């Protein structure tokens, strides 16, 4: 069977699985719709969290990005996993004990303020929409490339599937489909990686392959550094970004991860505080399987690419080269007309003739390594699983922010359980359609906006939640002042360098050499500082709120 036949078969089978799971676990109450009834086993929740967290970007783009960035790509590896330590130690157990449905719930109740609640609602919706449009676009790209339908059809198919199980099943349906999606995506990621590891360094464990030795006896990484030096690229294991920038980007991604609403809300779904602590550990294990493989794939793919392509005759290129050239992700421009491909870096005298898009590294890797057709098709099913699971989790945050936080807690406190559930379904359906629209008409700055999402989560949610739990004296004025200071500083910096004056976005112009991707860390510090100073000028929270703080700190206590 050819690649397309296998793709259709595997994608259809995986979709049938998701729909089957969704029908078996649909939601009957708002509690089931928002937090899956609160009875999810910690290991199951860990797996669902891993699928929720690992997006189309993690699956398709991350290994490729690391492949081109070398050491500098470590910011994603450390940043997107280190946040789970913060989550486990500083947030998840306490928010579980608090025991309501959403982040705005906590912010509004803890700071006794509907202003704070509304700010949190707006941030949650903004962050989630930013993310979800990227997922829908990912669905469209994968479906169009592997099934050869146009991108719009691809997005509509993806919307249909998400609509079905998110609207019907709510958090309960999403949780169990995410478990199925995790299995599909990790299998699809690991199979080509294992083949590659066997092929390149003769070990079946790709994670260990990164430290392995090539057939000719040179260590993989040393060989890669030599190739890079010869071709004029920065050293693979040293990178080229300034240390301070690497530091700040990593910190922003960590605190941003810990502050992302669709991740936090997953820890409301387990039965006990103790389960929330353990569940974060399981989530991290399931994430780490992919995240420790990605740098190995990156190094394999980089070596493969340089050895197959560099300095070789264009006419001798294998079939995959021409196939991916057609998609525009790969382009050769024979500047000196010698028929050879010169692929060189910024430190070389020879002009570079090859442009390679980072997404190729995962999508075309099986073809480059000459793997069987079913493995190539598996990558398509895996990419879809990653995109769909993340999209569903995000859409649920949007829907609960509208139906629960905005309608029930702010505008119509008397709304009945049945009406609230209906409102939740309607807003989930509406959010799916809007996300699909963004997927078909991408705003053109998705990548820039992602920096925004993390910066915003790091400079608003993270400090406000941590202070709400760890300081009893912190009050409304401090929280709102801190959020406003953190968000406006971070947003201002990113807007300036990404949208208003992108040509000036160079290390010389950045404050302290910190790029817009890392500025959320400074915004977060500013938030802590402003809140720490101005809360002194207002009275402490009410006795009732202070008792609530005591209660969320002690797992076994019963009063709320």
């Amino acid at each position, binding site marked *: 069977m050819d690649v397309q036949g296998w793709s259709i078969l595997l994608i259809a089978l995986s979709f049938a699985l998701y729909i089957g799971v969704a029908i078996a676990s649909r939601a009957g109450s708002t509690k089931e719709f928002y937090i899956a009834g609160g009875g999810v086993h910690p290991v199951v929740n860990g797996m669902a969290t891993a699928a929720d967290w690992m997006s189309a970007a993690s699956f398709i783009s991350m290994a490729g990005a*690391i492949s081109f960035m070398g*050491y500098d*790509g*470590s910011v994603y*590896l*450390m940043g997107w*996993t*280190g946040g789970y*330590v913060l989550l*486990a*130690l*500083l947030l998840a*157990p306490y928010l579980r004990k608090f025991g309501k449905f959403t982040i705005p719930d906590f912010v509004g109740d803890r700071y006794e303020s509907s202003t704070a609640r509304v700010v949190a609602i707006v941030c949650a919706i903004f962050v989630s929409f930013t993310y979800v449009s990227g997922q829908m676009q990912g669905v469209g790209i994968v479906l169009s490339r592997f099934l050869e339908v146009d991108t719009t059809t691809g997005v509509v198919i993806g919307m249909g599937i998400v609509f079905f199980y998110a609207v019907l099943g709510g958090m309960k349906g999403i949780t169990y489909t995410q478990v199925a999606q995790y299995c599909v995506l990790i299998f699809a990621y690991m199979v080509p990686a294992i083949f590659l590891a066997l092929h390149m360094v003769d070990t079946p464990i790709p*994670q*260990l392959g*990164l*430290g392995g*030795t090539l057939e000719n006896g040179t*260590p*993989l*990484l*040393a060989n890669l550094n030599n190739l890079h030096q010869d071709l004029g690229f920065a050293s693979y*294991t*040293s990178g080229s970004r300034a*240390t301070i920038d*690497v*530091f700040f980007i*990593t910190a922003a991604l*960590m605190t941003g991860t810990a502050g992302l609403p669709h991740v936090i809300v997953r820890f409301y779904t387990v039965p*006990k*505080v*103790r389960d929330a*602590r*353990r569940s*974060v*550990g399981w989530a*991290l*294990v399931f994430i*780490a399987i992919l*995240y*420790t493989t990605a*740098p190995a794939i990156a190094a394999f793919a980089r070596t493969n690419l340089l050895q197959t392509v560099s300095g070789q005759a264009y006419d001798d290129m294998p079939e995959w080269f021409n196939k991916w050239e057609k998609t525009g992700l790969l382009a050769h421009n024979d500047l000196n007309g010698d028929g050879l491909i010169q692929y060189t870096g910024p430190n070389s005298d020879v002009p570079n003739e090859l442009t390679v898009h980072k997404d190729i590294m995962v999508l075309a890797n099986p073809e480059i390594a000459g793997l069987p057709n079913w493995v190539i098709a598996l990558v398509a099913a895996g990419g879809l699983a990653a995109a769909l699971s993340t999209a569903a989790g995000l859409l649920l945050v949007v829907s609960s922010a509208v139906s629960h936080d905005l309608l029930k807690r702010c505008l119509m406190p008397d709304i009945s359980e049945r009406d609230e559930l209906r409102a939740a379904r309607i807003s989930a359906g509406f959010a799916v359609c809007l996300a699909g629209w963004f997927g078909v008409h991408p705003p053109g700055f998705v990548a820039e906006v992602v920096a925004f999402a993390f910066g915003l989560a790091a400079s608003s949610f993270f400090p406000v939640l941590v202070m709400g739990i*760890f*300081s*009893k*004296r912190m009050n409304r004025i401090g929280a709102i002042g801190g959020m406003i200071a953190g968000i406006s500083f971070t947003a201002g910096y990113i807007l300036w360098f990404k949208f208003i004056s992108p040509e000036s976005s160079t290390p010389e112009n950045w404050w302290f050499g910190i790029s817009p991707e890392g500025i959320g860390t400074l915004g977060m510090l500013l938030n802590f500082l402003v809140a720490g100073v101005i809360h002194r000028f207002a009275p*402490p929270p009410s*006795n009732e709120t*202070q*008792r609530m*703080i*005591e*209660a969320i*700190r*002690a*797992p*076994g*206590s*019963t*009063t709320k």
Partner: protein
Amino acid sequence: MTSSPPSELQDSGSQYWRRNIRLLLGLLAVWATASFGCGILLHHFLDNYTLPGSEYPLGFWFAQQGSILVFIAIVFYYSHAMSKLDREFDLEEK
């Protein structure tokens, strides 16, 4: 126990909470040492060594794989230690 008026605004209120804070500060120090320390600030220095028994430059290993393994260990250790602490102070959820 929490029906009494709140204990003065002191965050270091109960013994349980003080022990929790001490534990998590210690673990956050490990977290920062593995990632920001070994993986970033000391990365060039550690690259002069390799991970014993392999060909990984040590700083690069911490940045791309090692810190993740340390993170997992921290989270499970915390979960385990806190379950013990909950039992000791009779704060387990029924």
